[in-house]
């Protein structure tokens, strides 16, 4: 076995130029040899006998003339039981294991297997010898925490194969053989294959629980892709009611710094009604990931009664970690998501922030001296973003079960201006837009999603008519507010003023939500429907007041009591007491005329 080698001919930051003799593959992994460490890199451009590689590590110390070893493998991740609950870097190195080995700091050139090799899993075969299988078909299962983890025929298989050997039920490590496959599904096809020139090489294939998959290629072992419809409940009222997310849908959260993107994602990662959450912490603060990885093992998932960590995978390539690995991290995340989708599970991928990924592309593009597009982003930015979000979706698998990958990405626009390339490219492809507003954040109106500018193409959990009424009130209230800025309160009619107060009321008691309150922090779909219906009733009630001061006072009190209501558990007796009180209050000001 000879490894293909090349020679370093240039270094510029994390860009390494290599002269090579034999063939190289675009996106192939290679290692730069530096003493007794090897630094991982990926081929990103080939010109003549020179390849440009992005190095996933600090390049300090590399020299012209140094050796580079090509692997012939595309940048890939390992897929097997044992992924859940783990914390990886962008290249799928397990960070806690790295810490055990290297201590406080990340050490370049240290790569560890993502999946523990020594752990045995209780395997139960699902198919018998003679069965015909295709890529992605279930061969057997192992329990992984609360899930039945399907062990699937390699996603790389082409055509039909016949199961020749199925390992009996028992404990196996991920590298042990659990099945052998023979090419060809039935006699005719098998003959066809064996006549082909490559046929003879296709001996039987030994299959273990572990497979690898190149991160930049979507896994497509399913029967069909469907249109997302079913709502994905986040327990955040302004989302589920006004700007819903669908299972298998995509959405983005652009907002200036400090507007609440990360908090929103953290809340979603806790409360979202999905089987598995994959958090891709891409190029932002390490501290934010620490909160998640320290807290999740101690938080119970109300859906399962187990810890949240058991349904979570964290892919963490924070801002001071190598930039090229940051680019890889979102792909690592989405590939893991697709893998669990193949098991008929609903997976949510949260990427914070996709702008950092785009910036990593920009940094590389600049070093490659490509012709820059707007704000120096590469010209292919749009298509890269589009194909990333395209990896979301709900699919019908070959065994007729359904699985979904929902993708929610934050966007960090330069200067908070949404007219920038990353936001614009993202808006073209997503199904919902949760635009965060600096003004709302400044006024502590959290979550600071702009109620008039945001949109969603997905179905809400509340009836259309109620939603329309609430929207009309919000819009009209905003118009009155604008008008008052010009004409003053005295130039505004009492009727208009009440519309304004109603809009402010809905904002304060429904759109705003106290993320840190144990009850208000998460509102179930049932409670949302109930409360929203009730509030819409109040909005639709004609009211009579002596003057504006009385009206304001009334709504201030109403707001306060409704907030108390939000903080009361639905099953507590106080819940209906407060409801009755609200009813009484509204009755007193109702205009019967």
């Amino acid at each position, binding site marked *: 076995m000879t490894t293909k080698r090349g020679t370093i001919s*240039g*270094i*510029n930051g994390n860009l390494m*130029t290599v002269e090579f003799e034999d063939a190289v593959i675009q996106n192939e992994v290679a290692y730069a040899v530096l003493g007794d460490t090897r630094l991982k890199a990926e081929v990103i451009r080939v010109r003549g006998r020179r390849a440009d590689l992005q190095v996933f590590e*600090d*390049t*300090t*110390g*590399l*020299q*012209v*003339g140094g050796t580079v070893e090509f692997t012939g493998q595309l940048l890939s991740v390992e897929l097997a039981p044992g992924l859940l609950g783990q914390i990886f870097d962008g290249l799928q190195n397990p*960070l806690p294991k*790295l*810490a055990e080995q290297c*201590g*406080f*700091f*990340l050490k*370049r050139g240290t790569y560890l297997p993502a999946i523990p090799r020594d752990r045995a899993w209780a395997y139960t075969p699902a198919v018998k010898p003679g069965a015909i299988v295709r890529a992605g078909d279930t061969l057997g299962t192992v329990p992984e925490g609360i899930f039945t983890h399907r062990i699937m025929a390699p996603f790389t298989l082409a055509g039909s194969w016949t199961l020749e050997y199925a390992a009996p039920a028992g404990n196996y490590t991920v590298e042990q053989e659990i099945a052998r496959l023979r090419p060809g599904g039935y006699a005719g096809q098998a003959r066809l294959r064996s006549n082909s020139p490559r046929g003879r090489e296709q001996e039987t294939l030994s299959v273990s629980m572990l497979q690898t998959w190149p991160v930049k290629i979507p896994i497509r072992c399913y029967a069909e892709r469907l249109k997302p419809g079913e709502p994905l409940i986040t327990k955040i009222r302004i989302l589920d009611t006004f700007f819903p997310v669908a299972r298998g849908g995509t959405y983005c959260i652009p907002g*200036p710094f*400090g507007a609440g993107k990360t908090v929103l994602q953290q809340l979603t990662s806790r409360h979202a009604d999905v089987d598995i959450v994959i958090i891709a912490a891409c*190029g*932002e603060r*390490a*501290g934010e990931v*620490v*909160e998640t*990885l*320290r807290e999740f093992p101690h938080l119970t998932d109300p859906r399962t009664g187990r810890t949240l960590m058991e349904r979570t995978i964290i892919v963490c390539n*924070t*801002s*001071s*970690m190598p930039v090229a690995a940051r680019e890889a991290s979102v792909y690592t995340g989405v590939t893991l998501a697709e893998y669990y989708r193949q098991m008929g599970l609903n997976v949510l991928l949260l990427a914070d922030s996709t702008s950092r990924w785009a*910036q990593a592309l*920009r*940094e590389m*593009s*600049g070093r490659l001296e490509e012709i820059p597009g707007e704000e*120096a*982003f590469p010209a292919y930015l749009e298509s890269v973003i589009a194909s990333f979000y395209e990896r979301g979706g709900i699919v019908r698998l070959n065994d007729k079960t359904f699985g979904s990958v929902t993708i929610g990405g934050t966007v*960090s626009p*330069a200067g*908070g201006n949404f007219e920038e390339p990353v936001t614009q490219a993202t808006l073209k492809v997503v199904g919902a837009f949760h635009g965060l507003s600096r003004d709302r954040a*400044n*006024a502590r109106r959290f979550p600071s999603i702009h109620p008039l500018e945001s949109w969603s193409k997905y179905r809400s959990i509340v009836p259309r008519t109620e939603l329309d009424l609430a929207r009309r009130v919000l819009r009209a209230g905003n118009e009155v507010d604008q008008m*008052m800025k010009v004409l*003053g*309160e*005295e130039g505004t009619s009492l009727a208009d003023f009440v519309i304004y107060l109603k809009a402010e009321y809905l904002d*304060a008691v429904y759109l705003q939500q106290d993320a*840190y309150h144990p009850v208000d922090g998460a509102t179930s779909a049932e409670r949302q429907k109930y409360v929203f219906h009730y509030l819409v009733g109040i909005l639709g009630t004609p009211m009579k007041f002596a003057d*504006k*001061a009385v009206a*304001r006072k009334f709504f*201030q009190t109403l*707001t*306060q009591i409704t*907030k*108390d209501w939000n903080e009361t558990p639905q099953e507590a007796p106080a819940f209906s007491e407060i409801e009755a009180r609200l009813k009484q209050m509204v009755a007193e000001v109702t205009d019967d005329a």
Partner: protein
Amino acid sequence: MRRIYRRIEQIAGNVITLRAEHVSYRELAEVFVRGGQSLAQVIRLEGDRVALQVFSGTRGITTDAEAVFLGHPMQTSFSPALLGRVFTGIGVPRDKGPVITENPIPIGGPSVNPAKRIIPYRMIRTGIPMIDVFNTLVESQKLPIFSVAGEPYNPLLARIALQAEVDIIILGGMGLKYDDYLFFRDTLEEQGALSRSILFIHTAADPTVECLMTPDIALAVAEQFALQGKRVLVLLTDMTNFADALKEIAITMEQVPSNRGYPGDLYSQLAARYEKAVDFDDAGSITILAATTMPGDDVTHPVPDNTGYITEGQFYLRNGHIEPFGSLSRLKQLVNKDTRKDHRTIMNSMIQLYAAYKESQEKRAMGFRMSAWDQSLLKYGARFEKEMMDLNVNIPLEKALDLGWAIMAGCFEPAETGIPTQMIDEFWPVKARGLPAEGLV
């Protein structure tokens, strides 16, 4: 083995290019310039062409100047002897003390494994209500002061540093005015804090490239102390000068600028420094307070903009006080749950009311009639600004919270504040109990 080269092919900006072999990326070299020598660092390798960034600048370099490669990247010395000393931006003594060369450590080292970080949990008390109450500072936080040049950000940094209970203060000055350097040195000395401080000072008169090294050196030293269990506070002022030095090099190297001339990796460069802030599992911590001046008071300028996305909040210093809007401590919720039960209530309600006050103020400016509610807000806003926002106010957190209740009770009915009933019942000052509703201080 000394590797000496004498053929300089190109001199542009602060970068020289020569032909040499077996040179490592980021290796240091010594270049002989007129009247002395300067360090230089490899910033690009292309075949046998080596681009070197010359620390003292290229002025006076001859094309046959000697360059000697040293075989290692930039280092600084780490020793307890650093305490109480003042150095230049690259670690050369600025005071009369001896040169320190022992125990060289690399600078700009790798990042901390996120799995080895812990959630910050210790509040840093400053006595400034706008910080303690509204945007609590937390040990291991990284936080800049955003302001225009001319605001008292350096005195504010010094005040926080002296009030904070930390073991070691490290000052990284970048493009610092000489007067400001003297101010820091004298203030630390007067308050008896100089012996636990180390100053790395790049002044406006020093070569630009040295400015690029200053934060790395300050942070590398801080990191070593933190690993020994020390609680270190690093002050970096002014990071905009650091960013401008980056810009200068990028332009010399003919990089495609991304935004207003700044290189596309500005975010990553700033993050590499700020992310050194850390609370170590089983060791000490690094807290970073920085100054970021905003050209034209524009927060969307690339430097404050990228900074805001990296740091854990920011304090806006404007007209001599910390602005309630825009100022943010992202870590405050980690500590304000354990200070006093009413802390968060005061924090949220007072700001919401202050926002309403601002609206009333606008209406008044436009000549509209003020309703009774507007009048209450105007009264409230004036008291808030005078009794809370003024930087001269120096009171402990608990006093500030009491003051908050007193101000609100002096201006509003309980229901007008939007505070949950339960909190009102417990904390709203009752006049009969003898608590003065007007002015506690």
